[in-house]
């Protein structure tokens, strides 16, 4: 008995030459390329962005150059457009989340019911997710919200009302509607799967306890969905912080800066004004902002998922 225990390698505290060291030799070269590539993939752009953010660097004016210190940052942080963009970004993320999670939950409850043609209805509801952002933005811009050719204008006109110029009068709201339309299927898909995993005996127990549709929703279904909703919020936030195509195609950030978010502001600075230094500084600020949001989100969601 004693001999077998001493002979067997203790995991974690291994001192045997056999198993462990051999494994290191074998696996390190195999994982190294991907680790190196991923590391470079991340660190090179980040380092370059950091580097450029401390430089005077304008593509239109090769004469200026050299170290700028924090001037790009101070210029940006005192520039009201950054604050506008930041507020727009938060506004956009927040409302898209509210719409997709809210409507997604309701639709998930609906599609969980048995009705004729349910599978086709589900397919149709999921479909927008497979349309490219640029395409869907163009469809919304030219076929739905267009003040002359659009479907909405047709409706308002047939009611005798003036057409609404969506992108002129409500630029950010229009962008939010388009983005929410794109992300609703994602929320629906995750939440529907979650609802279907709810134990049917639990629902029956609640029915016997006297729960009607509303109590069932608020006391049984919604708590059950808590975790799935957290996941939807986390994933959507990551993508919504960098919405670009929808803005580029529809409003181009305007009128003025009314629908400019951080991603679009960086684009404006870097490519419209050819100010690489300023754009890089804005990029760094966006990275920091995203990380702050991520820390809060991951914390609260990890707590949610843990219990």
């Amino acid at each position, binding site marked *: 008995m004693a001999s077998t225990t001493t002979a067997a390698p203790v995991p974690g505290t291994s001192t045997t030459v056999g198993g462990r060291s051999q494994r290191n030799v074998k696996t390190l070269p195999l994982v190294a390329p991907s680790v190196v590539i991923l590391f470079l993939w991340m660190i090179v752009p980040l380092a370059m962005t950091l580097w450029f953010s401390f430089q005077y660097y304008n593509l239109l004016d090769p004469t200026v150059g050299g170290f700028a210190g924090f001037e790009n940052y101070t210029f940006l942080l005192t520039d009201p457009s950054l604050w506008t963009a930041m507020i727009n970004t938060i506004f956009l993320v927040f409302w898209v989340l509210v719409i997709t999670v809210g409507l997604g939950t309701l639709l998930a409850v609906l599609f969980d019911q048995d009705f004729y043609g349910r599978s086709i209805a589900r397919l149709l509801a999921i479909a927008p997710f497979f349309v490219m952002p640029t395409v869907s933005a163009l469809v919304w811009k030219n076929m739905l919200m267009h003040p002359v050719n659009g479907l909405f204008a047709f409706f308002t006109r047939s009611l005798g009302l003036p057409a609404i110029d969506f992108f002129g009068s409500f630029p950010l709201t229009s962008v939010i509607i388009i983005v929410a339309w794109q992300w609703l299927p994602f929320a629906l898909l995750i939440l529907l799967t979650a609802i279907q995993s709810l*134990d049917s*005996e*639990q629902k*029956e*127990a*609640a*029915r*016997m*306890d*006297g*729960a009607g549709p509303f*109590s069932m929703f608020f*006391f*049984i279904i919604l*708590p*059950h969905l*808590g975790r799935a909703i957290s996941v939807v919020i986390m994933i959507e936030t990551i993508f919504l912080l960098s919405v670009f195509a929808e803005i580029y195609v529809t409003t181009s950030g305007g009128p003025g800066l009314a629908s400019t978010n951080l991603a679009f502001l960086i684009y404006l600075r870097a490519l419209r004004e050819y100010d690489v230094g300023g754009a890089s500084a804005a990029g760094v600020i966006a990275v920091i902002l995203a990380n702050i949001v991520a820390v809060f989100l991951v914390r609260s969601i990890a707590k949610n998922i843990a219990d």
Partner: protein
Amino acid sequence: MSTIVLKGIQKNYGAVQVIKGIDLSIDDREFCVFVGPSGCGKSTLLRMIAGLEEITAGDLMIDGQRINDVPPSERGLAMVFQSYALYPHMSVADNMGFSLRLAGVPKEERRAKVAEAARILHLDNLLDRKPKELSGGQRQRVAIGRAIVRKPKVFLFDEPLSNLDASLRVQMRIELARLHDELAATMIYVTHDQIEAMTMADKIVVLQSGIVEQAGTPLELYHHPRNQFVAGFIGSPKMNFLPAKVTAVTDTATTIALPSGASLDIPVRAGGQKVGYAVTLGVRPEHMRLAGEGELLGEVMVVERLGGETFLYTQLNDGTMLIVQADGEIPTGVHERISIKLDPAACHLFDGEGLAIERMERHPLANLRRLPTRKAS
């Protein structure tokens, strides 16, 4: 008072008939057990009583009122599910008080009622825990507590003990019997385990493929099974069945001959049986003993020693297998040849259709009832 009456209850799923017309009456404060093999429709029947499944045809009455179309929460029933179906995000106290909360009972009263149920079930110091922090037996008790809190007219249980380990199951069985006595409530209990049925029931209802094979007290089913199915289902180990032929019929007994050549006088009313008819002899393992000049001879193939008793799985000379219960002290080993004596008074006879041939005398305990002695509060 709460009596339940089922009149011609049927259930169809599409074209498939699952419950094929059940007539049954369950008395006030009775512990009624539905037992039967898996898939026979026990759960379906219980869920129809609960109101979770539509009743295709027939009448369901509680206290004389037809409640086919009354929603589940208004039938005055409480159900304990096999999976417990506790609400995972609520504490034990909230789980138990959920129905009261939905009914708008004030917080103080709710707390008092939950505390009372917790006291009965010994859950007092677990009230703040979440279901996942409880053991299987404790979860089971919370599920029962959730039912008790509502003070229902009838408790419904769907295989509540099948997720527990063997020793806990025995313990909960005793606890449920005690609870039945203490609450003086009508209970309907579904199980596939005949031991649970025998130990707890006032009335056992044996179901098979959607029909009632027999309903009666445990000892009635044990001593007077109506057919071969019930005879084989009730009792452990299973009753042995041997082919036989009627050789003589008198007023007091029917004489049969076994393939081994042995002859037995069974005290049953012959009814329509005539000499030469093929019948089936049913004899329980506990009604046989090893003796010098027995009716049956065979070779022991497997020996199961439980300590108090020993089961001998014996192959008879004509090849049929027989389970014999013997004393725990006997030294008989595998491949020994034994001679088995039957007790004719405890033997059963079944006709060609598998129906029991009526016995001469009714067992004195067959009508024994075990209703709670306390008065309902």
